[in-house]
């Protein structure tokens, strides 16, 4: 069984500048693999090539060189098959919704376009109505929807069409926090976990990526700077993290017991300086348990994913080109 659902090898793409002979490089020899059922995030400044990447993978544009396989099909040689294995949804815009049809008609249209039988379409529309709260807007014409309603309608396609691969361009863009949360929930718990769909999404929000993405690729100026789990990326930059722990009971620990650099005691808490809080905490907990103490409070200060990226890109971002 295919384990790498999306494979990208040395993909390059450049665009010609308007009325000149110069070229802008959008992607330069990009390679990565996405495993089955994974949620793979692509982060990077605007203009880094994220959207180009998604467009190439969903067979909308052709790369200049390199190969890519979606669900085992080559994007150029088996374009039709590769295209039908994936579904591209662009968040926060008008794309993907016919302005004159109602939401329901739109969904039926896309369902039929993807070859779903009528009864399946009907069922899935019912599900989508429930999950995304579309009851009030399902029979409204798309042109009359407000921003949030429109985004929900576009995301409904995500629930309707369950191709093995789902490409998302900023799915929570322009969504209010509650709805954004809902979408992340649907992505991580329903689409990825239950349906087993492989998701490749772009995002600007570190929190989002850390919460639901299995692995993340950092794209900058057309190149992949790093591609790993958020945890590994954090470990890579070797910045120290600080834990402040409150313990009930008596616990004396030495730095090496918990894989820390330094341990300081104060009146009511223990301060631990370490390289990776995620390896310290489990050890701390088991030590505490072994000594009959209880951990009642933990506060962590560690670099955010954004700080990680800044480090990896090196110095000033050089974005906003």
């Amino acid at each position, binding site marked *: 069984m295919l384990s790498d659902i999306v494979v990208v090898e040395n993909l390059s793409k450049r665009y010609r500048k308007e009325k000149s002979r110069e070229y802008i490089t959008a992607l330069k020899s990009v390679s990565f693999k996405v495993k089955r059922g994974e949620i793979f995030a692509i982060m990077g400044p*605007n203009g880094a090539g994220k959207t180009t990447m998604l467009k190439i993978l969903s067979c909308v544009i052709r790369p200049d060189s390199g190969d890519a396989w979606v669900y085992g099909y080559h994007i150029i040689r088996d374009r039709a098959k590769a295209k039908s294995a994936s579904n591209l949804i662009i968040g926060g815009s008008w794309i993907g919704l016919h302005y004159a049809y109602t939401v329901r008609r739109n969904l039926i249209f896309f369902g039929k376009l993807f070859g779903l039988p009528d009864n399946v379409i009907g069922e899935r529309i019912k599900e989508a109505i429930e999950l995304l709260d579309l009851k009030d807007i399902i029979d409204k014409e798309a042109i009359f929807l407000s921003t949030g309603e429109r985004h929900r309608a576009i995301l409904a396609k995500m629930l309707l069409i369950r191709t093995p691969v789902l490409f998302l361009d900023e799915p929570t863009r322009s969504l209010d926090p509650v709805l954004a949360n809902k979408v992340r929930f649907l992505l991580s718990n329903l689409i*990825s976990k239950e349906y087993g769909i492989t998701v490749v999404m772009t995002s600007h929000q570190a929190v989002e990526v850390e919460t639901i993405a*299995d692995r993340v690729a950092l794209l900058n100026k057309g190149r992949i700077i790093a591609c790993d789990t958020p945890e590994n990326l954090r470990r890579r930059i070797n910045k120290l993290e600080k834990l402040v722990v409150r313990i009930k009971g008596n616990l004396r620990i030495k730095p090496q017991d918990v894989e820390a650099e330094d341990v300081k005691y104060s009146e009511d808490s223990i301060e631990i300086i370490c390289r990776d809080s995620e390896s310290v905490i489990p050890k701390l907990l088991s030590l505490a348990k072994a000594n009959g103490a209880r951990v009642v409070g933990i506060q962590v200060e560690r670099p955010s994913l954004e700080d990680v990226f800044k480090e990896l890109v090196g110095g000033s971002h050089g974005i906003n080109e």
Partner: protein
Amino acid sequence: MDAVVVEDVYKRYPKYKRYGPGTALGRAHWVMATLYRLKGRGYVEALKGVSFKVSEGEIFCIIGPNGAGKTTLMKCIGVMLIPDKGYIEVVGIDVVKNPLRAKKKITVVGSGYWAGFDWSLTLVENLILFGLMYGYSMSEARSKAKEILDVVGLSEKANDRPSKLSSGERQRLSLARGFIAETPVFLIDEPTVGLDPEGAKQVRGYIKSEFKKQGYTLIFTTHFMYEAEYLADRIAIMDRGKIIEIGSPEELKLKFIRGKVIDIKALNVYKNVLEKLRSLDVINIDYFYRFGGAEVNLKILTKKPYEILEEAIDIILSHRGSLIYADVREPTLEDVYRIIFR
């Protein structure tokens, strides 16, 4: 002096059906639209009695779920929409009675793609056009355009078209429209939507410094709670056409949350464990799975963080899960939002 006064504003939109464009009726949509408008087939109440005041030089933020009426409210203040009832005043000018005079004092920046400039003109030409529209002479407009391009930091791209700019630069171009006209009031819908984090930071920093320096009044909407916290002096929360809360970020946090948020990452946590966690004395739990269910990310909002943390650790460990991360932190505005709109 109050820069913007909104009193008891109501606005409703008529609902009317639209036929498919392929049909004969669809092509004659205008007939149907007229008929329905005359018949009045029901309305969507967008604003139901909104009142507030914004003082001069204040940065005011409006947040709320999509469909709450934020954009409608912005459009009413920006004279792009006439309310059904109520009174709106901008720097002392009644916007309904004197729309053109009011528009001279307002810069409206819509969200995203339609940020209010001409895509087929270069930046300089756009700014000159803005200047002309607000009453400058040709030479005045030209020199002001160059000046403002410097101020927003886009002078190198003066002869490029907006399509060549990055989104952050486009936002600054839209802001430039207001700078060149020196309008005292700015209305911006989602200032940093679609921008990457660095670009967003630049725009936010720019707004915070420039606007305060010039004493402009700004009303903006956003979905990024940290942006609201960072920029706004006061925040209004809207829901279904009404303002349900107004206050500074601190006031709102104090009012709504007397507790903290626990972020937890754990492995091997399954449904039964989640059920147990949910039954604890918490205000809200959000959970997300990663790695196909092997890892769970929990965000617990609770009034008794330390107790709950203890109990959560117990439950997880006793069910053979392992906790790899926990953090008790202060709630942010986003948590306030989630509580209000649960």
